[in-house]
């Protein structure tokens, strides 16, 4: 555990000192500030627009951190052989995997806390400055914290896939591509399967529906972590649903870490 914590701290320091993170934070701050201007362009559903923009910026920033910083840090370790500096010491490969993932998680958590605070600030400022913006009757500020937490959890799942793809692929760009595909499929697949199964709009073949349902068992259902709509409309959040979704997210991340370790254990690293 001591070694894992040491590598977690080193990875965190690397990330925090990185200019990429500063750039992402600066851009996100700008986009949050522009929330006021963009929300003003709408005449109706301004509360929903405000929340959508805020959480979209949060997701975009989180994905940017995963793609450019997370994949970058791990890829640098593997392809530049910095990992040899660690593995040449009394440091097992599974400790390396956990330490590195722990550091990336800490970076993402820090960024989520800061960007989440900026998001909440932008909502608050919008609610004061945007004329005609009315929050839904059952809107609750604590629900924003739950929504941010589940956004973070979905990013953790994506990051576990990013980590896995970086370890198995020989190119940083392939890892980014596979991770993006996973993110895209994770967000869209449930909706597509429901539409095809419903049969109201599209007449799809049973084999296609079966194929897509099989794919949905492999890729994570990231739309389950998206609580924006519930939060924006003041809809109640079911604690049982939230609990099982959290377990689902954590289980997926753990499973991907296990797969990553299985591959990394056998891999020649120099």
């Amino acid at each position, binding site marked *: 555990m*001591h*070694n894992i914590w*040491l*590598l977690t701290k*080193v990875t965190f*320091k*690397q990330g925090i*000192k*990185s200019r990429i993170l500063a750039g992402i934070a600066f851009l996100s701050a700008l986009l949050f500030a522009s929330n006021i201007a963009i929300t003003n362009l709408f005449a109706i559903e301004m509360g929903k627009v405000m929340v959508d923009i805020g959480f979209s910026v949060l997701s975009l920033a989180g994905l940017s951190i995963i793609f450019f910083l997370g994949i970058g840090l791990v890829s640098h370790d593997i392809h*530049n*052989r*910095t990992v*040899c*500096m*660690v*593995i*040449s*010491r*009394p*440091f*097992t490969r599974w400790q390396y995997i956990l330490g590195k993932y722990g550091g990336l998680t800490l970076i993402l958590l820090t960024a989520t806390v800061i960007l989440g605070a900026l998001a909440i600030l932008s909502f608050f400022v919008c609610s004061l400055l945007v004329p005609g913006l009315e929050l839904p009757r059952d809107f609750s500020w604590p629900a924003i914290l739950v929504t941010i937490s589940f956004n973070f959890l979905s990013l953790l799942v994506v990051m576990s896939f990013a980590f896995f793809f970086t370890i198995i692929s020989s190119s940083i760009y392939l890892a980014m591509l596979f991770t993006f595909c996973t993110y895209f499929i994770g967000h869209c697949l449930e909706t597509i399967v429901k539409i095809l199964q419903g049969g109201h709009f599209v007449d799809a073949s049973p084999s296609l529906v079966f194929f897509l349902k099989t794919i949905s068992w492999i890729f994570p259902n990231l739309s389950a972590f998206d609580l924006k709509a519930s939060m924006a409309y003041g809809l109640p959040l079911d604690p049982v649903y939230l609990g099982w979704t959290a377990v689902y997210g954590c289980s997926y991340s753990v499973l991907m870490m296990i797969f990553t370790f299985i591959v990394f254990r*056998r891999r*020649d*690293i*120099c």
Partner: protein
Amino acid sequence: MSEIVFDHVTKSFKYGLKQQTVLQDLCLEIEKGEIFGFLGPNGAGKSTAINVALDFIRPDEGRVFIKGLPGNSVGSRGHVGYMPEHPQFYEQLSARELLCFGGLVSGINRSEINEHIEIILEKLELLPFMNRPVRTFSKGMKQRIGMGLAMIHDPDILILDEPMSGLDPLGRRLVTRLILDFKERGKTVFFSSHILNDVETLCDRIAILDKGKRLFYGNIEEFCRDSGSMEEAFVERITNSGH
């Protein structure tokens, strides 16, 4: 018991459809307290042998033992300090942070680590640069930090891959002094090089590798016996092997 043992190590790599054997039935034993030089032309398999010893790559056949422990065990690596040919670091960290990480992971107590760091940095003539990020270091300074990372936990065995690579004459003298100091304290040094002067100055015994095969294994006097100089003996040995 020998400090490092290569026991019939064989390793091949696949390049497309072809398979290339990089190490062929390598057998070596490095004794305690000696400086052992591992020589060969570029692409001979020296770095591959070191990578197998440190479990970075897995041999197809054979095993490596370090102080009697399997080379792929975590315990064996506590006895080893390693410096690669082109050291790569977490460059956002300062020299102090990097050595702190290396030392703590290798088992140095937190209460003693700062003292160890200062001693090492002073030996490496890097004390004034302790708090600078490593990404601002020159190539020679990075090479010295790599040496520091290898030595921070005062291991019994140093494994160095081309330790003089990229160093100016002052840096080379510094590393030579450190290696000799290491030996005087009864430790073992195993280093690869293709610079014969360094090997001649430092080594007790050597092994010559070419295309993965061991061509010679013994002391320098024996190697140079039939030739005028080490360079002549080396060229003759490589040429006769069909290089």
